[in-house]
């Protein structure tokens, strides 16, 4: 007994290290566990409480510049709204002709980013909306430029959004022009690849990439990025396609969570 005690005492630091390493691995492999998620949600609320005022201070310094940009954006958007109103009217006329009915609209909630994450590479952010605001896991997060990510963990007053720039994020997309389907996977900075596109399909530089609508999370037609490289000079059956995202993930401050998906169903 004394011998065992001596051994344990002598190697206590190594035993402690092995113990912490094991716990770390358990945590890494339990990230999808509901209990771990619930714990993260609680902790997240506490951190957001501290971080939010600090972030507000940071924002105050940029108000003048932001104000100018917002004015510019208002003018741009008002022009776009006019054009879109025309497009909606045209769309309604066409739908009527085709006996389609738009049963519900996109319902979005604005949210502020309260934490960009402290890891060297931003791959998730915390927003100031939680389950109290109707936020649930697997809701899409967007900005006017396009897709930002999806909600992966929810606290009462905050939630974690996994960004498109996370290496583990996969997004089902298609090109707007030719409807070629593929999967967008982030590479670095604002560049992604669009995988699984057969060489026989027509994809060209400059094509706009949008969400395919095949996933339960993202509605069809959300802007994702623009094709910057499309080549067949690679082994295998698929093209090499590079996509530059429309969203600048380093400048994100406010986002919108889609709390209700649009349902477009064919009328009987």
């Amino acid at each position, binding site marked *: 007994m004394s011998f065992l005690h001596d051994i344990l005492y002598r190697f206590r630091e190594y035993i402690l290290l092995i113990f912490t390493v094991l716990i770390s691995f358990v945590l890494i492999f339990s990230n999808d566990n509901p209990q771990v998620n619930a714990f993260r949600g609680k902790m997240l609320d506490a951190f957001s409480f501290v971080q939010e005022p600090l972030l507000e201070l940071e924002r105050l310094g940029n108000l003048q510049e932001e104000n100018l940009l917002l004015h510019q954006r208002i003018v741009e958007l008002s022009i776009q709204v006019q054009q879109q109103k025309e497009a909606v009217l045209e769309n309604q006329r066409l739908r009527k002709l085709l006996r389609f009915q738009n049963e519900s609209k996109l319902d979005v909630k604005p949210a502020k980013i309260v*934490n960009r994450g402290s890891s060297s590479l931003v791959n998730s952010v915390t927003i100031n909306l939680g389950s109290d605001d109707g936020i649930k896991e697997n809701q899409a997060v967007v900005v006017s430029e396009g897709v930002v990510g999806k909600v992966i963990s929810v606290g009462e007053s905050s939630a974690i959004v996994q960004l498109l720039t996370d290496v583990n994020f996969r997004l089902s997309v298609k090109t707007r022009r030719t409807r070629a389907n593929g999967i967008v996977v982030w590479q670095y900075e604002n560049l992604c690849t669009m995988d699984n596109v057969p060489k026989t399909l027509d994809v060209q530089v400059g094509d706009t990439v949008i969400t395919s609508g095949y996933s339960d999370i993202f509605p069809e037609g959300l802007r994702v990025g623009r094709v910057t490289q499309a080549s067949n000079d690679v082994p295998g059956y698929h093209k090499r396609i590079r996509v530059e995202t429309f969203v600048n993930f380093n400048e994100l401050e406010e986002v919108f969570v889609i709390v209700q998906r649009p349902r477009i169903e064919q009328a009987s």
Partner: protein
Amino acid sequence: MIRRILQYTGIGILILLLQLTLANWIRIAGIKPDFVMLLILYIGYREGKTAGILFGFVFGLLQDIAAASAFVGVSPLIKSIVGFGAGFLQGKFRMVNPFILYGIGVLLIFLGTFLYFGIYYAASPIAFGTMLQRLILPSFIYTLVVGSLLLFIVPIDVERL
């Protein structure tokens, strides 16, 4: 003993807040210095392996949670190992050449950064060369530069280490 634990806890929370705010303000092309890693190195050097492992694990865990990291567990793993490594140097500051001590610190920062990105992106399609060039080396160099600057700015009482 308890006073020291409270002291490190307080400093740790302050550093964590700096990591969440200041590190964002001074990021270059998305790359930030890891203040928490520098703190764990200091605690390991000063207090030894046990303190290095424990504080490394706790602050690593808090860092992952506060950072809204997609994988909780990577930082506590890395910080425990770095704290353990730094703990080997406890009490050796007057016996070993300062350049060797500094070199070991550099190696530990590199090891920590390398393991962090290596584990985090293990299942990703990013090529190792790209990861080394765009993530590991820039993060390592930035943390090292900030750590070296802190060595000049913050007076460290070597006699007490």
